Structure formats: structure tokens, C-alpha cells
């Protein structure tokens, strides 16, 4: 039990943080891409979607180059005594980067599907642009964003390649469920592997069922 509980909690913590951060950045970037009419838009969209098609190990390598102790960004963080390699925070960043396009894509599509007429109506009613975003645009896009966030959470939960590259396989510290399964199989510990796989499968089913219930009924009705 113990050998599954710790990696499960760590996986949920890592995926939760990665998803929370992805919602903030993904919604901002998705909104920007939906509203910004420029030739560079498609290029930026493609660049931000790259993590979806690149092998996670390649992403992990890029992250090591950037965030490692001698990396461009890592050396700078070192000055504040912050280290990301071989930490669970590093795993969060790996999961975040891998799952980011899922939130971005669905957020952009959701924002583009909001009827601009409703924003115009809010304008004539005297509502400021910032308030329009929070009172009209975001609520109407929320269902699409939520769907993307759930996919991203599931993706982050199953993250393996990039996580292994940057956070390693430290039991109790950076060993997430998917990494723990790999480690158990490598060690020939079949019973642990079986148990971990079972826990992972059950967790995924529970998340899917919970997700179905979390989507509020009235937002299903009002989606256009």
C-alpha cells in the first residue's frame, strides 16, 4: 500500500500544480491568440503547440539545458538558491510544458466561439473591457477551457519522459506513479508493478467520473 500511496500523492500534487499553472497561462495565451489578428499568430500558435508533437525526452532535454545548474535560466535561479533539477517542482514544470498545448488549443477555440455580439452588448451597457472578460467572455468559454484542463490534467498525470529527464527517479521525492511503474518493472518487482498499474487505472477512472460531474449542468445548456 505504502509503495503506491506516496507516488500517487506525488503524481496528484504534480499534475494539480501543472494544471493550475496551465489554466492561467493557457487561458491568457489562448485569449491572446483568439483576439490578436496578425500574421505572426499562426507561427506563435505552432511554436506553442510544439510540445504536443515533440518526444517528451527531447522536451526534457531542452528543459535540462534551460533549467540545469549550468543552464541559461538555471544559473540565474541558482543565485536565489532555487534548484529545479531533481525536485518535484521540476516535475511540475515538465508536466506543465508537455500538457500546455491541450489547454491552449481548447482555450483558443472556446474564446473564438464566443459570439462577439455579446461583448458589444456588454460594452453598450457600460461595462469595462476587463469586466467584460470576466463576466461574459470567460464564463462562456469556461466549458471549453475546463475540458482542455481535464485533458491536460490527465496528460500531466501520465507524464513520464520529460519528468524522468528533469526530475529523475528519486523514490518519495520525484518518483511519480508512471515513473514508479517503470522502476518496479525494471527491478523485476511484478507484484508492485501490478498494484501500481491497478492504482493508476482506478485513479484515471475516478478522475473521469468526477470530471463529468464537475461540469455544471447549466453551462452544458448554454454552450453555443
Amino acid at each position: 500500500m505504502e509503495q503506491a500511496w506516496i507516488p500517487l500523492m506525488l503524481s496528484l500534487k504534480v499534475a494539480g500544480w501543472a494544471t493550475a499553472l496551465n489554466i492561467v497561462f493557457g487561458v491568457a495565451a489562448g485569449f491572446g491568440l483568439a483576439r490578436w489578428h496578425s500574421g505572426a499568430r499562426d507561427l506563435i500558435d505552432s511554436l506553442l503547440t510544439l510540445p504536443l508533437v515533440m518526444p517528451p525526452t527531447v522536451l526534457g532535454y531542452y528543459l535540462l539545458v534551460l533549467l540545469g545548474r549550468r543552464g541559461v535560466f538555471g544559473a540565474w535561479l541558482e543565485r536565489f538558491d532555487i534548484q529545479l533539477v531533481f525536485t518535484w517542482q521540476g516535475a511540475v514544470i515538465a508536466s506543465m510544458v508537455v500538457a500546455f498545448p491541450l489547454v491552449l488549443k481548447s482555450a483558443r477555440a472556446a474564446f473564438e466561439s464566443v459570439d462577439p455580439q455579446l461583448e458589444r452588448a456588454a460594452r453598450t451597457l457600460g461595462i469595462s473591457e476587463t469586466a467584460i472578460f470576466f463576466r461574459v467572455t470567460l464564463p462562456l468559454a469556461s466549458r471549453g477551457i475546463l475540458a482542455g484542463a481535464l485533458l491536460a490534467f490527465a496528460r500531466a498525470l501520465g507524464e513520464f519522459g520529460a519528468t524522468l529527464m528533469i526530475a529523475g527517479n528519486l523514490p518519495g521525492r520525484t518518483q511519480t506513479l508512471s515513473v514508479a511503474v517503470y522502476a518496479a518493472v525494471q527491478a523485476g518487482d511484478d507484484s508492485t508493478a501490478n498494484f501500481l498499474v491497478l492504482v493508476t487505472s482506478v485513479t484515471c477512472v475516478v478522475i473521469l467520473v468526477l470530471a463529468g460531474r464537475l461540469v455544471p449542468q447549466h453551462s452544458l445548456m448554454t454552450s453555443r
Partner: protein
Amino acid sequence: MPLTVDIRKTLRTAERQFTLDVSFTASAQRMVLFGPSGAGKSLTLQAIAGLLRPDEGQIVLHGDPLFDSTRGIDQKPQARRLAYLFQDYALFPHLNVRQNIGFGMHTGWLNPGRRFSHPQIDYWLDALDLKTVAGHHPAQLSGGQKQRVALARALVAQPRLLLLDEPFSALDHALRARMRQELSDLQTRLDIPMLLITHDPDDVAAFGDQVVQVYDGSVRENAPFAGYQRTVS
């Protein structure tokens, strides 16, 4: 209604170029901009509301310049205090009737609550016979109810001018006649100046104290309505 509009705007797409060149002064309380679809009526209405920025010209309401390109004035739509009734009503689908009507009265970054109450909202719910559907969402309303909610939402802030974009086109024939009468009575009661755009001669008959004809982006005449040639479609 001392509204003066004198604007020009050129819109370009890959396929075509459209030039809006509209100039008129409204003197009656009820005025109709009349013309076929695609003539630029909606663009004119949007320019008055501040939703479309003209290239040049001026829009003056009661001596207040809403837009003046020579003086660099371009009031935000939020500051113009005009009511705009959209063709498809543009009700907020995620909010109930009460929240829709109270939308503009509630400032801040959050929407009014489901039971948001204000004497003005209750007055309009009552006046437009919407009390029984106050908690409904727009998807649950009939066409006539949607229009009443849109009207209440537009009028609750006591605007200086009511702009209506093809207000009856989404309704069936019988309902159209009734809503026309309702709007007419309401306008008389409130004595609010209104500018309505339409391609329906019946609207002209009901509201056209003053009629301006728009054709292909430009105002053709500023004269009493002389007649309408029905086109066979």
C-alpha cells in the same frame, strides 16, 4: 431628437470595398433608417453606439460630441449612455432574466447574483410582464419574451437614445404586429428618442415619423417616406 450624424468609413475585404457615407440630422422622436440588407444601416447604428470607429466625420447628440475626427473625440461605447437593441437580442446565455436586465447596473468584475434585486429591475419585470420568467435563462424564453428582456436591459439605465437593429425580424408575423404595438406604446410612455433600422415597410409605417433611406452605403434622401418598391425575391 437632436442627433446629427455625418460620417464616412471605408471597409475593405479581399473581395470588395464598401464605403459608408452617411449624413443626416434627426429631428423627430421616432426615426427610421430604411434600406435593403447590406446597405450600411447596421454599420451606421454601430458607429453611433461607438462599436465602429468612422474614418472621419462627427456624431453629435444633444450638443454632446460622441465622435469628432477633427477634434480627436471618440467616446467609448461605455460612456455614450445609449441603448442598443441587437437584432438577435444578444442576451447573455449564462445569466437568467433578472441578471440580464441588471447586467449594466452592477459594476465590478463579477456578475450580479441569481436573485439580484433593484427597484428598477422589479419595475421592468413588472412593466414588461416578465415576472414569471425572472429566473429563466434566455434559452427557455419565447421570441417575444427575449425581445422584452432585451428592451428592459437596454432601458433600465435610462439611456439618452434607443437604437434598434431590425427589432422584429426574428419574430413571426403575428408576434411582430404585437411587439410593434408594445414598443410603440413604450416609446410614447417613456418619451425616449429612438432610431430604428429596418428593411420592413411596416416598421416604417409604425415608427417612421422621420425616414432616412440608406442605399449602398449612402443616404439617398432625408425626406418623408414616399413609398417602397417591393422586390421580388
